[in-house]
């Protein structure tokens, strides 16, 4: 067993046993669920950011579309959690496919700016379209629905641990697919684009097509994260679409380490813990987060996991 396998094993054991140790440490199950949901989204963003080299500051758009997709479906259409998730993911992914096709030729900061702009469009729609979305007050009067498996019913609404494991199953599925893709020929073309777009192009890779695919895959899993976020809170409001939220995902990815697959998970854990503990002590928790972020970027540009990995090698 090598170091990488040991790390993978440790991460999965920690995730599988979370409800036990989280409570022992004085936390609560929902805190762990939040980490996994945000980690899923940050890892989805990092598929694009760290492994394709494309900077999106607008992933809240797809996160938020997933969140509203599931909320609106359950509130107005069908009281079904799985169907709501499917609708949320479909809406987010279709939006990403269309927007991606429009903007994929832009590069660097221009691309990043336009991703923010699109996210803000959705933010304002959610904010203004009071009648349907509840506007600034958010979408209320709906809750996640029990899972009906045919032979059994699982009450994910009242049983926080059951809901955690539902989230973990979907997280595991998403992580497995992303990991598989990154080790595949397709994944290697993404690394090639990240490393040297010109070289990739002149080795016969249609760069725009591959970037677009990476963008859509990334947004698909970000919208899955969004659906779970809404289900966790039994609530969505326009902040899920705000550029602040997009920025948080970038912060998580960078904090944990963009070049490592699990980095964003660590980043999300740090983020949630800081938010939970520091915000209970001071209103100003975002300043602490900002300071912490700057320190990490200055002294550990490869993120927390990047540092640990380097230690392990030397």
């Amino acid at each position, binding site marked *: 067993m090598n170091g990488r396998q040991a790390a993978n094993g440790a991460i999965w054991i920690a995730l599988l046993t979370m409800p036990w140790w989280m409570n022992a440490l004085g936390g609560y199950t929902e805190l762990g669920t939040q980490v996994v949901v945000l980690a899923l989204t940050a890892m989805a963003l990092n598929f694009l950011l760290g492994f394709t080299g494309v900077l999106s500051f607008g992933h809240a758009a797809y996160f938020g579309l997933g969140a509203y997709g599931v909320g609106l479906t359950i509130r107005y259409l069908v009281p079904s959690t799985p169907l709501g998730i499917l609708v949320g993911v479909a809406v987010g992914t279709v939006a990403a496919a269309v927007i991606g096709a429009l903007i994929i030729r832009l590069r660097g900061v221009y691309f990043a700016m336009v991703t923010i702009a699109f996210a803000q469009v959705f933010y304002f729609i959610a904010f203004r379209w009071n009648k349907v979305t509840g506007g600034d007050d958010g979408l209320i009067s709906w809750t996640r629905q029990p899972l009906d498996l045919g032979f059994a019913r699982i009450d994910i609404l009242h049983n926080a641990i059951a809901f955690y494991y539902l989230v973990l199953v979907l997280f595991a599925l998403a992580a497995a697919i992303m990991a598989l893709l990154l080790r595949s020929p*397709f994944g*290697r073309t993404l*690394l090639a684009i990240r490393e040297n777009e010109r*070289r990739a192009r002149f*080795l016969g890779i249609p760069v725009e097509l591959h970037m677009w695919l990476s963008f859509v895959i990334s947004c698909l899993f970000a919208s899955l994260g969004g659906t779970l976020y809404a289900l966790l809170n039994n609530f969505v409001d326009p902040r899920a679409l705000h550029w602040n939220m997009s920025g948080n995902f970038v912060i998580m990815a960078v904090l944990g380490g963009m070049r490592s697959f699990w980095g964003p998970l660590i980043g999300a854990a740090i983020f949630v813990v800081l938010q939970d503990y520091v915000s209970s002590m001071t209103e100003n928790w975002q300043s602490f987060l900002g300071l912490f972020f700057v320190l990490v970027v200055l002294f550990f540009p490869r993120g927390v996991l990047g540092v640990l990995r380097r230690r392990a090698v030397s």
Partner: protein
Amino acid sequence: MSLLRVENVSRHFGSLIAVSGVSLVVEPGELRAVIGPNGAGKTTFFNLISGFFPPTKGRIVFDEYDVTKLAPHRRVKLGMARTFQITEIFPELRVRENLRIPVEVASGHRLRPWLSRDADEEVRARVSELLEMGGLTGHADRLVGELSHGDQRATEIMMALALKPRLLLLDEPTAGMGDQETYNITQLIRRLHKDQKLSIVLIEHDMRVVFHLADRIMVLAEGAVLAEGTPDEIAKNEQVQAAYLGNVQEKSA
């Protein structure tokens, strides 16, 4: 049937005419050199052939296809591969991965989310073969960004070869190399040309390399063709001596 026909291409950058009415025909199995002083338009000419940007005027025909406006990756698919004057590689990937990527692209795997065991074996075998040919086997698991300049350039050539091209465009492959490295690369190019009958167009400043390898030489100056012929003809051409070779001899003296 010629492999590549460049017909009267020009390329303007604003008021600058970088390439002006240049034609070139490459027959299968031929090794052509393009020489000329700095800023003559050699690299621009390569950029036109490989599709970096389209020509302002003229036509490019590869293997009977009009590729004048074709995207670079489509030209690769037709069988063109190139290297760059300033090395273009994937610095933070291992040498093995640098080669694996073009091998997979050439095998039609680039969109696959996984490979069958057989396909994977085939890819690995081809990568080992390329490592061996480029003298890179000992460096296979190092990050290519950590290699010497010469090994990086060798890697880039092997990446182009991984595409199994029918036409290889090499932009100053020996630039910045020591004598031993230059010799190795020259021998490699010679083997590709003589043994594998690969068609090659070579931009090169080192006249020893050019005269050793080329079947025919084209001399560019200020964007236009100054002379064209066999190495002997070019060596005797007075215009070329005056405009270019004289300079080189002065420089190296």
